[in-house]
């Protein structure tokens, strides 16, 4: 019973973090929200996987956050991008999040009926992350937000997949994929910000 309550609390954390990541335009808040998401994911994953495997996911996730954070920090001279929709854009984001919440609330019990034993909290947390991740990807072409969207979507998938597949190899490969996405994000963030004199160095 206590575990269930904590799990629902983690789902609430996921919802709050997703909202913060989606609505905020400050990269510090976005990355903090991602770190919170990884912690909640760790808890939900350990409902089905051993603690060590869940911890590995948590550490990997936080490494990704650190990599993106350090990269973004080094680009601090870049101007913060203004939201073109302003206040209305934030309301639009909130409405989209609400749609994801309603879809999750509707779909979670049905998925639980199709795949019994997953746990409502696990399904709800997973669907929330997948939904918000997809919304991110659909609405932006900003590199950092795209990477955050992909990581969020992948994290949601990992929660559900951990319940049906417990292979160490898969967990390892998924961790590498997460880390790889983080590094790709860092690379793409820095690409183009270096001096054009590097052109000659890149050519044979």
């Amino acid at each position: 019973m206590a575990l269930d309550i904590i799990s629902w609390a983690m789902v609430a954390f996921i919802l709050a973090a997703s909202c913060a990541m989606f609505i905020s335009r400050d990269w510090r808040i976005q990355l903090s929200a991602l770190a919170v998401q990884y912690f909640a994911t760790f808890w939900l994953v350990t409902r089905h996987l051993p603690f060590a495997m869940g911890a590995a996911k948590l550490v990997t996730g936080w490494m990704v956050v650190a990599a993106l954070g350090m990269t973004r920090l080094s680009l601090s001279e870049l101007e913060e991008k203004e939201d073109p929709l302003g206040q209305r854009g934030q309301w639009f984001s909130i409405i989209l999040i609400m749609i994801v919440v309603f879809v999750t609330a509707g779909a979670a019990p049905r998925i639980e009926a199709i795949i019994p034993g997953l746990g409502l909290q696990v399904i709800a947390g997973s669907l929330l992350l997948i939904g918000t991740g997809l919304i991110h990807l659909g609405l932006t072409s900003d590199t950092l937000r795209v990477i955050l969207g992909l990581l969020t979507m992948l994290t949601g998938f990992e929660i559900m997949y951990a319940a049906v597949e417990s292979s160490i190899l898969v967990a390892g490969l998924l961790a590498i994929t997460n880390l790889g996405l983080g590094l790709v994000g860092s690379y793409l963030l820095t690409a183009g910000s270096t001096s054009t004199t590097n052109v000659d160095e890149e050519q044979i």
Partner: protein
Amino acid sequence: MSAPVIWILIPLVAGALILFFVPERLSAIVGGAVATVLALVAMIFPIDTALLISTLSIKISASVQVFGRNFSLNTADGTLLVIIYGLAALWFFGTQASGIANRFVSLGLIIVALLTASIAVEPFLYAALLIEMAAMLVIPLLVPQYQKPGRGVIRFIIYQTLAMPFILFAGWMLTGVEASPGDIGLTTQAGAMLGMGFAFLLGIFPLYNWIPMLGKEASPYVTGFLLWALPTFTVIFALGFLDRYTWIRTSPQLSGAIQLAGVIMVASAGLFAATQKHIGRIMGYAAIAETGLLILAMGLRSAEIVNVTFLLLIPRGLELAVWALGLSVIKREAFSLQFSEIRGLARKYPVAVIAIILAHLSMTGFPLLAGFPPRLAIWQELASQSLVTSFWVFLGLLGLLVSAFRTLAVFVMAEEKTAWSWNESWIQAGMLTIGVIGLFILGLVPQVMQPFLSKLPALFEHLSQ
């Protein structure tokens, strides 16, 4: 020594060593040599079979365990490895002539190793993870350090990443389908998930918009390599699904859907290519049409699926290599590959232009060139199944042919009295000439592929029956 160590671990390590320790000017030769040696080893030493040389007995074992899962390359995989590493060697040797950064060879070797791992891993659906990793490694090649990432690259990484969860989850659902094959609902869901996964991976209409974008914003040689490597292994992965699951193979609805997807890709890519004014984008559309043909081949209700598919895959590597190398040579002069920038370049770069046009014509299925025999085989199979489908494929290939003639017209549209000159380096001219000769050899005597093609059906036992 085991096969996965030779054809996965060694190229991985070699790629890393080249990246850190080999000078730029030598990386193409070293990387090409490594790939050639791996192809030769695959050709000479059969996997999992003892070979007696004098008093020395050599046997390459088939599998190795990693975290409780097998990576296995069997005797039948040997031929596939020869083709993969042979074509990879061609790409790596070509980098010297294309003039791109040295990390192409090192990361390219690592990418090929990861993609080889994707055909070796068991259960085979884990290949989706390895393909995703390979896709991520392509990013530093597509986006040089000095260039801002374009929309094409962003879409590429999004689509490749979205594919992975669909395929992994479909793989899990398919085990349920195997357990209860009568469950129509589960079967439909698994089929839809699998279809979405492969639609993202292969860039099926309308998810291929990143390909022409990359053709415009990234290096043509890297784009060409990407368009060769990822679809080739994805198709092999897809053939694995067809071979493994009887219901996918025998379902007429699914077969029809696969054919429809292929036809739409060929027709739309051909028609779009005919209206383009950028030769990088045209190469992208030609690759899309070729992928459409591969999908069409996989949807054939015939025992010849494997033969026709590989008959397409082998020339594809050569065509794209020659085309991409030619574009790289032209791009060094013109910077942009817009029609307005490349006008009349046939008189300055005759070898590169001839290579580009011949590779283009080959991909349209022009007689005497490498692309003709596989297209003839597809026509033969298609004509007996659906004339409507054949018509749309014809229309798509006609669009590609129109774009080839438009490109040729722009290349020869020089000012009067412009003198002919030869501005390609000896290496560029040599590599392009070898590639063009290869296109003619594969077109005139396609039997040279027969030793490979005859052994490949063993990879997919059920599909060949």
